[in-house]
């Protein structure tokens, strides 16, 4: 029996048209940011030249002659760095949105349950090991490469999330507030250990500080491949869970009443988001604010429905980080984490003020 009371069709979510506009717009934003970032750097290369070099390398019939050093700069130095920035930004943006839903807390960011402190411990430990225990490092077969630093960071991040989750478990499930507080506590402990390692770091100090500030310098095709694969897999799997994320916003009880296996879902979401975050942090260090600000901006523009919020947060995160890194390179090669903090923090304050002024108060 069909009720035909409404005069116009009922809109219960983003129409395909709107979704297309948002996603295409996001995609364009990312491409534009990428093209701009390819063209910017200490060595001046015009955007058309940069795109031409990329085009020719991927097999398009492009005319043009460039010095080998220019081609090297664009293809071997800038392009992997720009693409890594996109991957990292997308991972942080998407996982930020997921944690904000999981904790029903707009202040949540991807690092909230210990990925940052765990990754820092892993990376700093690997960087400092040659100073602390040179025999051990030498026995490991020569100098520890950046590959080991990244692997340690990745392992540290995941292990920490696992630890926090296990510690927060009580009785039947993992209460979200307990998870949050346990995350803070564990992060504090790990941060203290990291501080001690920094104190003992010796000549590795500069490298350690740069890692903690978050930097995309030295990005290579190899690390892009691995990080890209992990982040993409995690983000795609998260995108498919948009309905469950929406349900979680109704509160865990009601989500359960609507058919969600809440504890299992929390675990799966945490693991996927932690995977994306860990891969991002492993290659880029702890870059802040992208995972916090991107979902907020998207929510303002597009609404809280995760059907659009998730993919748009990934796209916006990618674009923002790419632009921030271009800015960081222009500013003389400062770590991109410094740029995101300098711009992100005041911007976030502005967002907060704006939203508290605008939010309507429900009457009792």
């Amino acid at each position: 029996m069909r009720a035909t009371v409404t005069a116009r069709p009922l809109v219960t979510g983003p129409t395909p048209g709107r979704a297309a506009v948002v996603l295409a717009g996001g995609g364009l934003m990312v491409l534009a940011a990428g093209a701009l970032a390819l063209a910017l750097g200490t060595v001046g290369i015009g955007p058309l030249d940069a795109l031409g070099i990329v085009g020719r390398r991927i097999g398009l019939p492009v005319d043009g002659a460039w010095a080998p050093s220019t081609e090297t700069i664009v293809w071997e130095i800038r392009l992997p760095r720009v693409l890594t920035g996109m991957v990292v930004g997308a991972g942080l943006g998407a996982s930020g949105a997921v944690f904000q839903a999981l904790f029903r807390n707009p202040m949540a960011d991807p690092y909230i349950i210990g990925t940052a402190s765990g990754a820092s411990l892993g990376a700093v430990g690997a960087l400092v090991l040659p100073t602390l225990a040179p025999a051990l490092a030498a026995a490991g077969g020569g100098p520890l490469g950046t590959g080991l630093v990244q692997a340690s960071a990745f392992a540290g991040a995941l292990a920490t999330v696992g630890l926090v989750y296990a510690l927060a478990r009580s009785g039947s499930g993992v209460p979200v507030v307990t998870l949050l507080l346990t995350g803070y506590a564990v992060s504090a402990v790990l941060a203290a250990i990291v501080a001690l390692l920094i104190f003992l770091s010796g000549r590795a100090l500069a490298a350690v500080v740069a890692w903690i500030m978050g930097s995309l310098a030295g990005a290579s095709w190899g690390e892009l491949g691995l990080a890209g694969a992990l982040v993409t897999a995690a983000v795609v799997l998260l995108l498919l869970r948009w309905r469950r994320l929406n349900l979680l916003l109704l509160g865990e009880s009601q989500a359960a009443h609507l058919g969600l296996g809440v504890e299992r879902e929390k675990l799966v979401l945490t693991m996927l988001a932690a995977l994306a975050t860990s891969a991002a942090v492993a290659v880029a260090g702890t870059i802040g604010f992208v995972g916090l600000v991107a979902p907020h901006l998207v929510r303002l523009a597009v609404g809280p429905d995760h059907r659009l919020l998730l993919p748009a947060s990934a796209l916006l995160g990618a674009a923002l980080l790419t632009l921030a890194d271009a800015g960081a390179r222009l500013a003389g090669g400062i770590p991109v984490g410094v740029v995101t903090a300098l711009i992100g923090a005041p911007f976030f304050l502005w967002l907060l003020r704006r939203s508290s002024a605008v939010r309507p108060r429900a009457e009792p």
Partner: protein
Amino acid sequence: MSTPRVKGNGIGMAIPHGRGPSATSLGLLLLVLPLLVLAGCLPAGGRGSAASGPTGRTDPSPSPEGPLVVTDDAGRSVTVAGPPSRIVSLAPSNTEIVCALGACDRLVGVTDADDYPPEVTELDRVVVQTSVDIEAVVAAEPDLVLAAGNELTPSEAIEQLERLGLTVVVLYPQTLDELHANIELVGAVIGEGGAAAGLVADLEERTAAVVDAVAGAGRPRTYYEVFYSDAAIYTAGEGSFIAELISLAGGEPVTGDAQGVIDTERIIAADPELILLGAASYDPALADAEGALAAVSARPGWGQLSAVRAGRVVPYLEDVVTTRPGPRIVDGLEALARAIHPDRFGD
């Protein structure tokens, strides 16, 4: 007190074999950090490279035109295809070696700390505030890159340059002998073996002359101060290059720990008879004898040191050459000898 600009390889010279600036380099870094953040960058990532590798050696079968295989100070085996015509230097000491061998015209990139010989200031800067600008190095299209060891050039940068197909040789001399070996290594690599041999002979001669001049003149306990702050004091590290120079110059060096860090108590216990202020090279407040003595006496606990009571606090203005492990290091040795034994040099 103004922040001393760390020129040459500065702190790097106060440290002995194998260890770099460590725990208390945090203090120094915090002071220098504002400069780094504002104007440049910190090296990203990094790894431990073999700290005390063998000094550079050449294989005994070089030919002027053919490829040369050398082992650099990081223990890396590097193949140099032929005498390079475009050289990038990532440390002022390396620049000075290249120029002393008469190949200054082949340099195409240097650091922003390079200042000798004067003409190198015209060259492109590929290192800004100790951070290597990979793009700039690549854009200069060098066929040889001379890097510095012990993370003074971050190992991640070296890795990346190698990945991009550039030839990188790492130099890190920790004694005078190693410096001579480096000069010969560079000479062989750039095809100026003759000039290198001549330069080394000249340096050895001048060194011997200094040792002769101060022979038998007693060895005053000498404290060379690289940097002083309430948080951290840096001097010659135990077994470091500067300690060796002071010894050769006829003094008994007061040394800090392996990283060159020393605290006031150690200094008081050592009771130096002579204090040389390297920071006077950068800080005008210390540049005259009265100002230097006043500043040092004002430090808590320092008034009782023999050197202070005897007024032997000397503003030392040749810190750059004394701490830069290049051909002018012997100028530094001579300056040290004059400061430690002025009577032996007709002053």
